[in-house]
């Protein structure tokens, strides 16, 4: 299965490379658009992991929803007169050290836990139906709570973003 390896490395490269552009790019619009490629790369990795329905959901929610919202945020918060889309960085060195610590501890944690899982499990055909059964039975309460979260987010965000009435 050489082709799967190549596709994995391709998607991994797309994901990590565009994530680096998101973080290190000075131009916020470039950052937003390379976030698109990160999301697509992760969706491709989901497909490789046989989570087909989640891959579609990833594109639908992250690319179609959250990225659009982020771009609206970019467009709503720049100054009309002096176009200042470039932003700087601060505390680079401590952040690198902390990120290295986080990465090390995550890698250590994964190394401690993955040992039991070497052989891939039997392949799951179409994950949408088992997810649906799980949502409707075992995860019924979180499912309803998710709707409450969305309701609260919608009301709160609409309240805050609304243009205040002229005093």
């Amino acid at each position, binding site marked *: 299965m050489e082709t799967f390896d190549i*596709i994995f490395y391709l998607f991994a490269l797309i994901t990590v490379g565009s994530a680096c552009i998101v973080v290190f790019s000075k131009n916020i*619009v470039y950052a937003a658009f390379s976030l698109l490629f990160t999301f697509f790369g992760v969706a*491709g990795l989901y*497909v490789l992991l046989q989570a*087909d*329905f989640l*891959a579609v*959901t990833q594109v*639908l*929610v992250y690319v*179609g*929803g*959250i990225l*659009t*919202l982020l771009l*609206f*945020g970019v*467009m*709503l*918060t*720049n*100054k*009309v007169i002096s*176009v200042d*889309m470039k932003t700087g960085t601060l505390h680079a060195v401590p952040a690198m050290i902390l990120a290295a610590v986080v990465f090390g501890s995550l890698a250590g944690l994964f190394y401690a836990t993955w040992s039991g899982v070497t052989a891939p499990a039997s392949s799951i055909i179409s994950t*949408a*139906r088992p*997810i*649906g*059964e799980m*949502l*409707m*039975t075992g995860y*019924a309460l979180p*499912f*309803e709570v*998710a*709707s*409450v979260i*969305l*309701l609260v*987010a*919608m*009301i709160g*965000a*609409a309240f805050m*973003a*609304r*243009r205040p009435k002229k005093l």
Partner: protein
Amino acid sequence: MLTEFGRVFLFILIGIVFVAIGLVVAWLLRPHRPYPSKRTTYECGETPVGDTRMRFNVRFYVIALIFIVFDVEVVFLFPWALVYLSLGWFAFFEMIAFLTILFAGYAYVWRKGDLEWDRPAPRIPRYERGVGVREARLTEDEIAV
């Protein structure tokens, strides 16, 4: 041995290659004679005015917000639609409760008038003493957030 998503991947790959070949061949064949007015942004033949990075009206954000909430709702509807026949009335009422809660939010934004789009009053250009036309322009306050 191609899986379903293998076909999608192949489709994307062929799409990229197709566009790349077209662009590269055009780049090799076309003459390169730029001049300033050729390099301006095409804006329906008009001379472009202002900057690309203009600020949007905040109403667009509220619309996008409602969109994303119902986007997530649709994502939850899909797996439900696959299983609700086998799970019976319980799953049906679960989804009814889910939708009722979300539509309460929709009713809120509707009631508060976030969906209403009050247009700026049209300013008809007036002739003043027959000398010239006063231009109809939005003031800074109308463009701003």
